């Protein structure tokens, strides 16, 4: 703890700042109140986009699956849809339904995990134990479908890798029945438990205008009454056939985000039931080519934490030329300082946890310090400046031939 101008600057992290992932927060305190908060990410940079660009599309599928330890299916869904759109593949209906079922099971286990973590952050460890116990049932189902608890490996280009057997469908139905009962209980609890309401209400406020200003996504935006669910505003896959009842709330605070997530879990249970009931017969995949036609594409998918954006560019080979992953947490970080300022130090862990941050998903940016302003250069101008810079260092790169790629 250091003192500056009569204010305390409290460093939180990078080890274990409320969640078990590395991130650093510099909190300037005026007494107990947070006056200024500076978020420093970048401790968990893994270079996964570059790794994708040096491997084949098939290999990339498993790197993309490991972008996030929770929303692995959302990431592979987005990446698969990128490749399928570029190859012009028509995914079988049964495969779309299975993708939808796994996606909603993933949303259930992600939100149950979050509810447990949030309860733990406010010292409500009983609820933490209960929600994580229930989450295990969902993980057991995911393991039975895909063969693994977290990295299910269900998606492949042109469909899914695993089919749903009738016994498994019946078992998922039974788990949904048991889970719905528990979720309704948690929802009732969230509405009446004074400890929960008192601890979560009125903190980490992000109003609709702030949501638009900081481009927040997912339950953070929906808790401010902004419906940004990609399944509704831009339906994809199975959601073109099955309508999603959007969930919003107008509390604009951490309590609102809790309500949104619990209601979304109940909606996920309903969606899984509908998808299981209407699961069509037929093949589960179509053969995908190894080489992807040249082009570029951007796909949006609704991950449990919000809108997940994938951009893929191909030059016609079996490796992508560029892969860009914009995980939902990356969008939610921008409003974090604003959400923390003005609230008590004791509220910092739960406000951070309320956006359900995933640090390793996000850490891809390079931050320039003392960059000295900004300027806009055309491509040729930028290349000339680069060559001049290297020539001043005694290296002449002007003879290097760039790989041609049709721009524009």
């Amino acid at each position, binding site marked *: 703890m250091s003192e500056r101008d009569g204010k305390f600057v409290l460093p939180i992290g990078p080890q274990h700042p409320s969640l078990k992932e590395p991130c650093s927060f510099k909190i300037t305190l005026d007494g107990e109140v947070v006056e200024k908060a500076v978020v420093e990410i970048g401790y968990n940079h893994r270079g996964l986009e570059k790794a994708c660009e040096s*491997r*084949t599309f*098939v*290999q*990339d*599928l*498993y*790197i993309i*699956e*490991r972008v996030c330890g929770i929303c692995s299916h959302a990431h592979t869904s987005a990446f698969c849809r990128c490749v399928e759109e570029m190859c012009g593949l028509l995914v079988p209906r049964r495969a779309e339904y299975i993708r939808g079922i796994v996606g909603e099971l993933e949303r259930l286990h992600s939100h149950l995990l979050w509810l447990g973590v949030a309860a733990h952050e406010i010292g409500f460890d*009983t*609820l933490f134990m*209960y929600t994580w*116990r229930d989450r*295990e049932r969902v993980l*057991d189902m995911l*393991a*039975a479908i*895909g*063969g*693994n608890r977290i*990295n299910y*490996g269900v998606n*492949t280009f042109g469909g899914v*890798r*695993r089919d749903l057997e009738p016994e498994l469908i019946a078992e998922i139905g039974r788990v949904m029945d048991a889970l719905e009962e528990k979720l309704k*209980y948690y929802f009732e*609890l969230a*509405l*009446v*438990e*004074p*400890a929960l*309401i008192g601890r979560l*209400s009125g903190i980490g406020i992000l109003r609709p205008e702030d949501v638009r200003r900081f481009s927040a996504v997912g339950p953070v935006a929906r808790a401010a009454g902004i419906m940004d669910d990609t399944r509704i505003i831009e339906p994809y896959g199975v959601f073109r056939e099955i309508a999603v009842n959007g969930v919003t709330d107008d509390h604009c605070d951490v309590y609102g985000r809790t309500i949104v997530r619990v209601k979304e879990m109940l909606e996920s249970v309903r969606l899984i039931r509908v998808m299981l009931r209407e699961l069509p017969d037929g093949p589960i995949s179509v053969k995908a080519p190894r080489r992807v036609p040249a082009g570029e594409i951007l796909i949006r998918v609704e991950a449990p934490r919000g809108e997940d954006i994938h951009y893929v560019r191909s030059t016609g080979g079996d490796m992508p030329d560029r892969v860009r992953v914009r995980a939902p947490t990356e969008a939610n970080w921008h409003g974090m300082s604003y959400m923390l300022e003005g609230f008590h130090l004791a509220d910092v862990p739960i406000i951070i946890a309320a956006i359900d941050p995933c640090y390793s998903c996000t850490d891809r940016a390079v931050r320039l310090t003392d960059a000295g302003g900004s300027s806009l250069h055309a491509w040729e101008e930028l290349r000339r400046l680069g060559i001049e810079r290297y020539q001043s260092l005694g290296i002449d790169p002007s003879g290097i031939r760039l790989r041609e790629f049709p721009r524009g």
Partner: protein
Amino acid sequence: MKKKLHLPGELAGQAIRNVFAKPATIDYPHGDPSIPANYRGRLVYDAPRCINCLMCMRDCPSKAIRIENRGTKENPDMHAYLNVARCIFCCQCVDSCPKKCLSASNDILLARLSRDELSVEL
């Protein structure tokens, strides 16, 4: 907050019921971990069916599997080696194999005491 606030302790009834309920966890390693039959665990290799196409090696994202023919082209003697420390158990090799000579088992007991022991022949 317009909702009527109750006294703290909404969870009390549930908590008391759970005191007498059986544990949600299992007594591992003594209990049954109930691994699903189609779990992606240790790989199983059926050497006589292998045609040495090396598609598994080509598609492996972590370069964990290696196929070696110690015989001749006419009289093959196929062997598969797996670096369990590198394997991410995605089982893309199983999907890529055109002759279905690789398959996943639900054996999850793969821990060893040294790194060298993690390089195994399938």
